[in-house]
C-alpha cells in the first residue's frame, strides 16, 4: 500500500472552502435557533393552551427524530410545501434549524423553570408586570444555567452539520468525500477529514468544559 498525502495539500482550497461552509452553517443555524427557541419556550410556558400543546408537540417530535431523516425530509418536502426551489445549503440550514430550535426551546424552558416560583411572585408583589419579572428577575439568573448548555449544543451542531453532506451541501465532509471519489485516495482523504474535524472541534469541546466549570451553579 502506497500512501500519497500530497493529495490533501493539492485540494487545500476546496477543503478550506468546505470548512468555511461548515462554520457558516453552524453560525447561521444558531443565529436562527436561539431566537426561535426562546419563542417556542415562551409559547410552551405562557401561551394559550392549544398553542402550548402545538409547541410541546413540535419540541417532542424533533427531539425524537434522527437529524439525517429530517434532512432528507426537508430536501423532498420543503420545495413542495413552499413552492420554492431551495438550494441544498438553504435546505440544510432549514433542517438544522428545525432540529436545534427544538433542543434550544427545551434548554430555555428548563432554564426558566429552574428559577423558583416564589421569585416571580415576589417580583409581581413589588409591582412588576409579568414581562418585567421575566426580563429583570428570571432571565439574568436563568442565563447562567442556559449558556453552558447552549455551548454544548453548539459543539453538537458543529458536528451535525456533517449530516447535510447527504443532500450535497458542500461543507467539509462532502468536500472530503468528493475529493476521495475523484482521486481514489480513500485513506488519505478520510483521515484528513477526521483530523480536520478533530482540530476544529477539540478546542470547542474544551471551551465548553471550561464554561461549564466557570458557570457552575451551586445551591
Amino acid at each position, binding site marked *: 500500500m502506497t500512501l500519497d498525502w500530497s493529495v490533501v495539500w493539492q485540494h487545500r482550497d476546496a477543503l478550506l472552502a468546505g470548512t468555511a461552509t461548515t462554520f457558516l452553517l453552524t453560525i447561521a443555524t444558531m443565529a436562527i435557533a436561539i431566537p426561535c427557541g426562546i419563542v417556542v419556550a415562551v409559547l410552551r410556558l405562557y401561551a394559550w393552551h392549544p398553542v402550548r400543546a402545538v409547541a410541546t408537540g413540535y419540541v417532542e417530535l424533533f427531539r*425524537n*427524530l*434522527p437529524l*439525517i431523516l*429530517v434532512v432528507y*425530509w426537508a430536501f423532498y418536502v420543503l420545495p413542495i410545501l413552499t413552492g420554492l426551489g431551495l438550494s441544498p445549503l438553504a435546505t440544510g440550514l432549514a433542517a438544522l434549524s428545525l432540529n436545534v430550535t427544538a433542543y434550544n426551546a427545551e434548554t430555555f424552558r428548563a432554564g426558566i423553570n429552574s428559577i423558583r416560583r416564589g421569585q416571580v411572585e415576589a417580583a409581581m408583589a413589588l409591582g412588576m408586570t409579568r414581562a418585567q419579572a421575566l426580563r429583570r428577575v428570571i432571565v439574568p439568573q436563568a442565563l447562567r444555567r442556559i449558556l453552558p448548555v447552549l455551548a454544548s449544543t453548539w459543539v453538537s451542531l458543529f458536528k451535525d452539520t456533517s449530516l447535510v453532506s447527504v443532500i450535497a451541501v458542500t461543507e467539509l465532509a462532502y468536500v472530503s468525500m468528493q475529493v476521495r471519489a475523484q482521486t481514489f485516495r480513500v485513506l488519505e482523504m478520510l*483521515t484528513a477529514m477526521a483530523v480536520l474535524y478533530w482540530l476544529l472541534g*477539540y478546542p470547542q469541546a474544551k471551551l465548553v468544559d471550561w464554561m461549564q466549570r466557570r458557570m457552575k451553579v451551586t445551591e
Partner: protein
Amino acid sequence: MEFDFAVIGDNWRFLAYGVWITILLSAVSGFASLAAGLVIALLRLYGPGWLRVPIVLYIDSMRAIPVLVVLVWTFFALPIVAGVTMSPFTAALIGLTVHLAAYAAEIVRAGIESVRPGQTRAALALGMSRAQVVRRILLPQAIVRMLPAFGSLLSITIKDTAIASVIAVPELMRQSETVAGQSFQPIEVFSFAMLLYFLMLFPVTRGVDRFYRRVAHLGRS
C-alpha cells in the same frame, strides 16, 4: 398534491426489515458501549496513572469528531489500514461503539463521582478493598443516578444508527431511501419513516423517565 400511502403497504416487509436492523444495531451497540464505557471510566478513575492521559484524549476526541466521520472512516479506511474486510453492519457496530463508549464513560464517571467521598473512606475504614468499595458501595448508588443519562444515551444511539445508512447498513433510514427512490414517493415514505422513528424513540425516553422516578430513592444517600 395527492398522497398515496399504498406504497407503504406494498413495501412493508422491506421496511419492517429496516426496523429490525435498527433495533438490533441499537441494542447491540448500546449494550457494547455501556460495557466499554464502564471499563473505560473505571480505568480512568482507578487505573494506572499513565492511562489517564490517553483515555481523556480519546473521550475528548470523540466529542470533537462527527459520528458520520467515524462511521465512514471505519467502513472505508480501517479495512485499508487493518487489511480486513467487514460488512457494513460490523463497521457500523464498531464505529458507533467506539463513538458512544466515550459518552458512556463520561456518564459513569459523573455517576461515581456524585457519591460522596466520605462513603468511600468509611467503607475503606471498615476494611473493604478498593474493588469491594466500587462493587458494593459506589456502583449500586451510581447506577441508579446514571439512569436518566443512560436513557438519553440510548435515544442518541437509536438516532445515530440512522447515520449508518451512509455506509449502506440496511436499517430503517436506508430502506426508506431505497423505497423512496424506487417509488418516486419520497414524501409519503419519509413521513412514514418519521412516524416509525418517533414511535421507537418516544417510548424509550418516556419509559426511562418513568422507571427512574420509581427507583430514584435507591440512589439517594
